[in-house]
């Protein structure tokens, strides 16, 4: 088995079919090794969310290979060992946080005691203790985002796939999320996350990939990328995108 937790090769994904087909990913390749924190950057519409959906088997490749935790992306057994935070956190608004964790926990095949234990831990971690009984329809956007992060951590996954984890969060919550991600790394987990927040990526990532127009235009360790132009990631990002313009 390869040491790469995520392996994407020459991935092409199209939305729609025939003449109205729209190519979202156009030969994207990425490898992510175990234990990395990989920041996936790119402008709006670059293909970040599509890549993540392809990893989870929510969209299907037209061509190319995707392996997640050594399994094909469509293989749901890999879902036991990963956690996913969607780009927009919408959960069943008629449930409360405790109930949603219980529901997901049951799908993971966790028993009642384990579900209760893990729910307490993850809600504590994201700072939602005391809100377990509030229906999600009464949650704010940021609180929903925290529920999203909590459910992604529920099964103590070895791989986390986070689509803009700090979107909608206040500065204190952002710091908290960064801390959570760093702690995950410390305990040997792999984190793959997309972001627009370059300063954030600079603070926590050890690897960075820049996607543009459905292709990976640059990737490497943060040090490599920064030493290349000795500037901030933000400047580097803007220059890369500008150069890549057709």
């Amino acid at each position, binding site marked *: 088995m390869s040491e790469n937790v995520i392996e994407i090769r020459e991935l092409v994904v199209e939305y729609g079919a025939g003449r109205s087909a729209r190519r979202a990913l156009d030969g994207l390749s990425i490898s992510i090794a175990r234990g990395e924190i990989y920041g996936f950057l790119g402008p709006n519409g670059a293909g970040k969310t599509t890549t993540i959906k392809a990893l*989870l088997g929510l969209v*299907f490749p037209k061509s190319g290979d995707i392996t997640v935790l050594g399994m094909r992306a469509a293989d749901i057994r890999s879902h036991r060992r990963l956690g*996913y935070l969607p780009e927009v956190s919408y959960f069943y608004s008629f449930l409360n946080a405790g109930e949603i964790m219980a*529901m997901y926990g*049951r799908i993971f095949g966790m028993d009642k005691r384990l579900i209760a234990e893990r729910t307490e831990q993850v809600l504590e971690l994201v700072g939602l203790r005391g809100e377990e009984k509030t229906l999600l329809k009464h949650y704010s956007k940021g609180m929903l985002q925290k529920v*999203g992060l909590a459910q992604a951590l529920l099964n103590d996954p070895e791989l986390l796939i986070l689509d803009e984890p700090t979107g909608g969060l206040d500065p204190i919550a952002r710091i908290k999320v960064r801390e959570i991600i760093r702690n995950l790394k410390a305990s040997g987990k792999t984190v793959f996350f997309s972001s627009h927040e370059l300063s954030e990526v600079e603070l926590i990532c050890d690897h960075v990939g820049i996607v543009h127009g459905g292709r990976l235009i640059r990737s490497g360790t943060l040090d490599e990328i920064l030493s290349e132009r000795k500037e901030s990631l933000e400047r580097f990002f803007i220059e890369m995108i500008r150069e890549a313009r057709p």
Partner: protein
Amino acid sequence: MKGVWAVAVNVVREFFRRKDYYVILALTVVIVLLSSGYRFMGIAGATRYMRDLSLSLIWLFVLIITVVSAGRQLPCEIEKRTIYPLLAKPISRLGFIMGKFLGASLASIFGLTIFYAFFTVISAGQGTGWILILQSYYLQLLSVLLVASMVIFFSTFLTYGANVTLSFLVYFFIKLLGARLHDMAEQMAALPSFLCSALYFILPHFEFYDIKTRVIHMWPPVPAPAVTVLTVYTACYVAAFVLLAWIVFRRKVL
């Protein structure tokens, strides 16, 4: 399997937390109670009329609950994007479909059971055989499963509104004409005749499940072998619809 059950339980929970279903429940209780008023008016044939009305209302309400609750499952999950975190869990798309089907069926069966409990109480002491009422309940329960699976299948490729419309159209078309399709075919030219016969054999016959007339007139119960055959018949159709739903949904881009 645990995943299927978790999804089903969630559907039932939503059913109870949405207040509109309480309205339907309350309304039916009121109507059934009202119609039971006929009993005290002592008009000849009123009992029969009361039974007819109650059973027709039960039939209609259960049908509405089934179509509405099964029809909204997939479109809501997709529109509200709750399907993303759900399918990122270790549950297959087939498991998801089965859970939705099971949950929508259970919710409708809950309504059905309440309605029949009321009906049984009202018609107590009027000479209707228990076996007949039980059979009527059971057959409608089977029809709930059949309708729910059909609606779930439609929801894999239709919008909610189109689905509800088509489901009611198909349902009433079959209920009214299903039994006659075969006879109609015999009076037609070759091609329409063939199509008519084909429909007769392909479409699920919702009219099989309706033994209201028997209950109203207190005829003898349906023979047990017929009920058994109908159970197997239902199981085949439900399996086919769930399978079809999965075939369409399997590769759906979300």
